[in-house]
Structure formats: C-alpha cells, structure tokens
C-alpha cells in the first residue's frame, strides 16, 4: 500500500524536478544541509568500519606513513634542540675592547661606566694595565722582554659581555661591536664571533636539509596513500558499479575513499608522534650524561603541542591529497555496463 501514494505523487514530480535541482542545490535548504552533513558523517564512519575490517593492512599502511612523517618531524625536533643549545652558547661570546695606550686605569673605569649603559650590554669588566701585564707575564713567557722595556706597554682592556634584557643575536653583537669601535678612547675592539656565525650557518643548512627531506617524504606519503586507495577502488569495482546503478552521484562514490585517505593520514600522524616521542625518550638519558660532562644543565626538548598538531595536520592533508589523486584518476572510469 505504501506504493500507491508515492507512485502517483512522485511519478509526476520526481523526474521533472531533476533539472531544477541544480539551482535548488545552490540554495540548500536546512534539510539539505543536514542531509549533507549526515552523508559525510556516514561516509566517515563507514570508511573507518571498512578499514577496521582489515586491521593488519590498515596498520601497515599507517605505519609506513608514520615512519615517513616521523623522520622529518624527528629531525626538526633535534634541530630545535641544537638551536636552543646555540642560544645558550651565545653568552660565551665576549668583546675585548683595547683602549688607547694614553688612557689611564681611571679613564678605563670611567669608560666602563659609559659602556655599561649601552643597550645590549650585560656586564663590563675592567682589566687594568697592571693586570694585563701580569697576565701577559704569566701566559706568554716574554716576561723578561717586558722588564727590558722598563714601562708597561699594555693598554687597559674592557671585557664586554653582550646580552642584557634581550638575548643578543650575532647581528646585535656585531652592532655593539661597531659602536664600541667608534668610541674615541678605543684603539681596538674585537669579538670571536666567527664560530657562532658558522654554527648559525650550519643550522640553516641543516634546516634546509630537513625541509628537502620532508618534501620528498611528503611526496612518498602522497604516493603511498594514492596507491593504496587505487587498489581499494579496483578491488571494489563491482560495488562501485552497483552503487552508481542505484543512483549514487560521483561525490557519493568518492566520499568513502577520500575519508579512507584521511584516516590513513591521521593514523600515520599519530604513529609518527609516538615514534618521535619514543626516540626522544630513548635519547634523554645519554644526552643528560653528555650534558653533565660539559657541566651544563641542558635538557632535551620534546615534540611540543604545535609541532605534534602540525604532524597530524600534514598527515591528514597528505592522506586526503593522495586519495584525491587516486579518486580523480581511477573513479570516473568505472561506470556500470
């Protein structure tokens, strides 16, 4: 009996409504929006159910993605740690300011006060001419030659430690150096910054390397997901034909496969986070021992929330992207015959 009603009502309306449905689709009614989300939710859960039926192969695909994502993520974390270490070492940089020979120790003390007030200066230590002479005598072994000179030829030295409120960058240190050189009382100011510049440059190279590695591995993930989805499409060819026969749109057929890719990417991202966390945990103890040998309190930093989210998001994006590639290439070709 349920059919009488419909046959009369729908036979007139349904077919003729079809051409108008396109414009109706633009102005989606509330019911339409609800159906839209419902269908997406159904596809999301359905595709998860599909994956859970073959947990072994799902886990393997996700693990491959996870390892591919873990490599750049892990390198990134290590690099950040080295950077943090470099920032600690910046404090080691000192600027030696040699004053002109005619400047007395008292002049040096006055100048030290002025330098202390400059921005970007942490501390200033004065080494008087006598102290400099003592040091020279002790370290150089030319003490006898100095005795022969009769008077102290060495100037007073200000030892400037850059830093202050702002952790100084090599660039700021260089600016400070220029400023000190410009002072009239100063004969020579020099800083050993080369090693720091080299470290920074080295880190930049490593960073670029991680980026390139990451790009290649991202491409690999894209292809892995694409291929997995391609196989899934081919193994379910009959099913796709049947679904199209009973009136499924391309979007409806596509949806579970896209969500398949999304799940693969998400699981891969989770596995990557776990792998990175595990590796860092394994490194913690040796790093602590190494740090202790250098009398440093360095602690290995882990994968922070933002980085973990980035890993998950790139997993999802690559999973979706890969399945989109496969779906675009292979799904349209399957039509019922």
């Amino acid at each position: 009996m349920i059919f009488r009603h419909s046959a009369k009502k729908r036979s007139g309306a349904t077919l003729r409504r079809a051409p108008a449905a396109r414009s109706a689709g633009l102005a989606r009614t509330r019911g339409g929006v609800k159906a839209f989300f419902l269908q997406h939710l159904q596809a999301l859960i359905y595709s998860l159910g599909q994956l859970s039926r073959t947990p072994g192969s799902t886990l393997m695909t996700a693990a491959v993605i996870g390892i591919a994502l873990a490599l750049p993520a892990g390198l990134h974390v290590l690099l950040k740690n080295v950077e943090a270490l470099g920032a600690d070492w910046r404090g080691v940089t000192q600027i030696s300011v040699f004053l002109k020979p005619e400047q007395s120790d008292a002049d040096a003390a006055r100048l030290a006060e002025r330098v202390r007030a400059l921005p970007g200066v942490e501390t200033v230590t004065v080494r008087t001419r006598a102290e400099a002479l003592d040091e020279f005598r002790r370290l150089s072994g030319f003490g006898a030659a100095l005795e022969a000179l009769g008077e102290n030829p060495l100037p007073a030295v200000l030892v400037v430690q850059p830093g202050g409120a702002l952790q100084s960058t090599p660039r700021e240190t260089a600016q400070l150096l220029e400023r000190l050189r410009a002072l009239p009382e100063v004969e020579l100011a020099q800083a050993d910054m080369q090693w720091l510049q080299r470290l920074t440059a080295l880190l930049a190279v490593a960073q670029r390397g991680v980026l390139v590695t990451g790009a290649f591995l991202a491409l690999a993930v894209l292809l892995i997901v694409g291929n997995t989805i391609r196989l899934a499409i081919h193994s379910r060819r009959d099913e796709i034909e049947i679904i199209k026969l009973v009136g499924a749109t391309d979007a409806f057929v596509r949806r579970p496969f896209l969500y398949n890719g999304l799940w693969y990417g998400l699981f891969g991202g989770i596995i990557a986070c776990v792998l990175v966390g595990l590796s860092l945990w394994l490194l913690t103890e040796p790093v602590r021992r190494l740090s202790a040998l250098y009398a440093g309190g360095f602690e290995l930093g882990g994968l922070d929330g933002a980085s973990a989210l980035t890993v998950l998001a790139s997993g999802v994006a690559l999973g979706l992207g890969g399945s989109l590639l496969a779906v675009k290439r292979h799904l349209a070709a399957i039509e019922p015959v």
Partner: protein
Amino acid sequence: MIQFSNVDKRYPGGYQALSQLSFALQRGEMAFLTGHSGAGKSTVLKLITLIERPSFGQVIINGQNLAAVTRGRVPYLRRCIGMIFQNHKLLNDRTVFDNVALPLVIAGMSHAEIGRRVRAALDKVGLLGKEKLYPVVLSGGEQQRVGIARAVVNKPPVLLADEPTGNLDPELAREIMTLFEEFNRVGVTVLIASHDLELISRMPYRILALRNGRLAADTPAHEQLAAAP
C-alpha cells in the same frame, strides 16, 4: 511514461543492437520485452537507465528527453527508476537491510525514515525476518526478492527488470511475477525483459517482441487475455 522514437544503437566496433525502434508505454502500464538473446532487450533497458546512450533517435522518460540529461544529472534520473537484475547485483559484504537501504542512504534520508521504509519494502517481498542476514546465505529466489525490495524502496514511478526469473524454478518465477503485478496495481510502470515465453504468455500483459534489434511484434494486453486458454 517510456517512449522510444526511431532509436538506433550501434556499439563501438559496429555491432548494431537496435534499429529504428519505436514504442511507448503509458503511465501505470505493465509490459514484457522479449526476444532471442542478442535481440536488444538489455540494450533497451540500458538506454532507459542511461548506462548507454542512443546512436540515433530519442528516448523520453516521463516527459523528459534523455538526450538533455547531462552526465552529472544521470544519478538523479536513476533514482526514479527501480532496476532489477538477473544476477541480483547485491553487495555481499552488507546485510539485507543495508542492501535495501542503499538507495535511501544515497538520497540522504534520515536514519529513522530509512528503517521505516526498508522494513516496509522487505515486508512487501516477504523477507521481514531476514534483514540482518548476508545475501550469500539466502536462496536465489530470496536474493532476487532483496533486489526487488531495493528497487522499490524509494518508490520509483518506473520499474525495470532484466531477466528477473532467469535462474529461478517456475514456481519461484511465478511468485516474483506476482510481486511485479502488485507493484503495477498501485500505479508503477513496469517493463520486464524476459525470454521465458511460456511464463509471460500465460500472463495478461502487453508483449513487445524484439528480433535483431527491431520490433517484431507488439501484442496488446487484451489479445493476450483472449489467447489465454
């Protein structure tokens, strides 16, 4: 409801499946399409569901010229046509319920509405207790009835069947035909392709006979009645 005008269908490779085929089915009419294998029965059904498109001529379904239906609109056309296949074309990894629910899920219907309609359709074909089973455990006749339930669950105005009784013994075939008659009685247009002449000649419906892609005979319903013993 279904109108063919001078339809030619030539498949790639040159095989001429239909030539100059013209016929019309009124709304609420039930008819059989018969002929030897290769006569073009399946091609007629494929043209109606836009699995194939005619090489020449027009097919008009419910006043709509199918030539004007773009690729993107094909699914919406198919939703108005219930299709039944000789090999059932069921999804074997889903339950009877999920198979029958498929057209409604595709249409984006709510969960409660789907449950109600699926049970009504299964009740109609006499499979109400078997909704949780998988198709493979059902007999051939039962599988065919699942296919019928799926075809009618969204209440399409047109029902097409391609050799629906092909693999069934005469008694089951008779039952399936009775089901089609019931749907026809409530206003559904039914077109059944079948080569089971013995069965269909005993039924009081119009018979379109194809031979080599041409309409060889169009026997009206009342003559059938008169000819019946």
